């Protein structure tokens, strides 16, 4: 395995160009979905829910929504979209015969997935700020953190994409991993509410430290546990990026 080089940018630029050409067809869903879920949970469900640690439910859940939609964008991009580029349209075949290496290509895909996370996180952050759900200046750090979060989930997604035999196999990744994780990683309620074996298990899932870190920054409540979460994310990122690079090389260079 070789390491990715600056040519990563070439692949990122390709995906950016396509996005800039097609964003109008996507933007409705991109904006509407998190707004609907924020309104439903914050104002609908929140009406029946007591304050959590002295904060209204809407305020509690908003950072979780930011973290999870940042996750969804990276994960969708680097599973279904990456798979279609690779297998259906064979676009990767055309790229790896140029001086761009498999590692440059994979890193470009991961970086693009992370870019989409950041775009989404920034948009929802702005929206929650307008609604007064987020007020601390530390919340601005959510923007760079969402990029790291995106790199982590994009790497996980590419690792899965590198080994699935069919497009439909990716559904399992969502039903068996992403969705359960979404509900059990402290996005919707504090992990302390869960029985202890499950809450311990929850800390092994990558969305848990991500949601914890984003929430800490949104509230402006700094603690060492935020640093711990950041390091856990970096650990997941290092592990899955290595796997993604190796497994994609194995799939494409035969």
């Amino acid at each position, binding site marked *: 395995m070789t390491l990715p080089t600056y040519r990563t940018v070439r692949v990122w630029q390709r995906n950016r160009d396509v996005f800039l050409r097609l964003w109008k067809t996507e933007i409705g869903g991109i904006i509407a979905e998190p707004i609907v879920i924020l309104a439903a949970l914050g104002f609908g469900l929140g009406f029946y829910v007591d304050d959590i640690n002295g904060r209204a439910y809407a305020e509690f859940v908003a950072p979780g929504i930011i973290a999870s939609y940042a996750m969804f964008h990276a994960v969708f991009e680097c599973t279904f979209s990456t798979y279609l580029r690779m297998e259906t349209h064979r676009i990767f075949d055309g790229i790896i015969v*140029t001086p761009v290496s498999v590692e440059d290509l994979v890193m470009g895909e991961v970086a693009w997935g992370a870019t989409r996370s950041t775009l989404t996180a920034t948009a929802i952050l702005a929206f929650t700020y307008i609604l007064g759900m987020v007020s601390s200046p530390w919340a601005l750090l959510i923007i760079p953190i969402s990029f790291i979060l995106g790199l982590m989930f994009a790497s996980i997604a590419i690792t899965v994409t590198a080994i699935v035999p069919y497009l439909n196999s990716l559904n399992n990744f969502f039903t068996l991993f992403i969705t359960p994780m979404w509900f059990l990683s402290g996005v919707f309620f504090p992990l302390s509410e869960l029985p202890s074996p499950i809450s311990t298990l929850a800390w092994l899932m990558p969305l848990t430290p991500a949601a914890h870190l984003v929430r800490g920054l949104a509230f402006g409540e700094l603690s060492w546990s935020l640093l711990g979460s950041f390091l856990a994310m970096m650990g997941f990122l290092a592990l899955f990026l290595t796997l993604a690079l190796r497994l994609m090389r194995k799939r*494409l260079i035969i």
Partner: protein
Amino acid sequence: MSMSTEYESEPIVLARNLVKRYKDNLAVDGIDLTIHRGECFGFLGPNGAGKTSTLRMASCVSPVTSGELLLKGKSVATDPRGVKALLGVVPQENNLDTDLTVLDNLLTHARYYNMDSTTALAQAWEALFLFQLGERAHHRIDTLSGGMKRRLLIARALIHQPSVLLLDEPTTGLDPQARHLVWQKLAMLKEQGITMLLCTHYMEEAAHLCDRLVIMNHGKILAQGTPRDLVRSHVGGKVVEVPSRGPMADHVTTMAHQNGMKVEEHGDTLYMFSPNGEATPLALELEEEQVTVRAANLEDVFLRLAGRELREE
């Protein structure tokens, strides 16, 4: 200058005992190649002969199992990026970028080679007009016909002015007009002196375009030479065809052997080759409508060399 002559004679592609083994399949079985600058070099053979595997190794997307493969002295094993910068690759299966327009396909591809955008834009327009795609510049890929897609693939492979063009069955699946247009473009590139490696199973294509070629089967090179020499040395000038189930098959076979001709049966036809030229006396003697006498071609060479094993597949 003596230096430059020496450089010119250095082969642009060099393979020594090149082997490609997949899990349980020996795709390329120890081939040697020496290809010179400006040559159009053909790989002829059936599916599974090892042609595509050879091109894939050359384009550094398939590791060499053993042996050596050098392009302009650079090894595909140790300097893949250096090798890939020299190559333009036209794949067998269309892999144009369906998310981008025709023009953007070229510009995006140029960026993978780090071309600056001004040069890329100029080259792209030039290539589009050369390949008769100028009017389609801003169209989507899926609005193009098969022939247009193939021409765009060739234009894309040339955008960075490569030293060597790899073409894997560039006209497979095209209708006759589209095929002739591609051939015309390739002949033009050949005149410009671009080195080409061309895989095909169309004998006509090989005879038309290739200066030299190898005939491959089961990963091995069966013969190599110019199309004309291969035909002359393996088949001769003329071929007589007779239906193998016809009433005179046995009679004809005996006569052919008496005339010193070689006889091969493929499908429903007996082919009689006369290595030293004259087949006409035999044909005249037969005086039957079912007998065909024609000029020998590469297909005959291939059938003779690959022989009966081909029919098992």
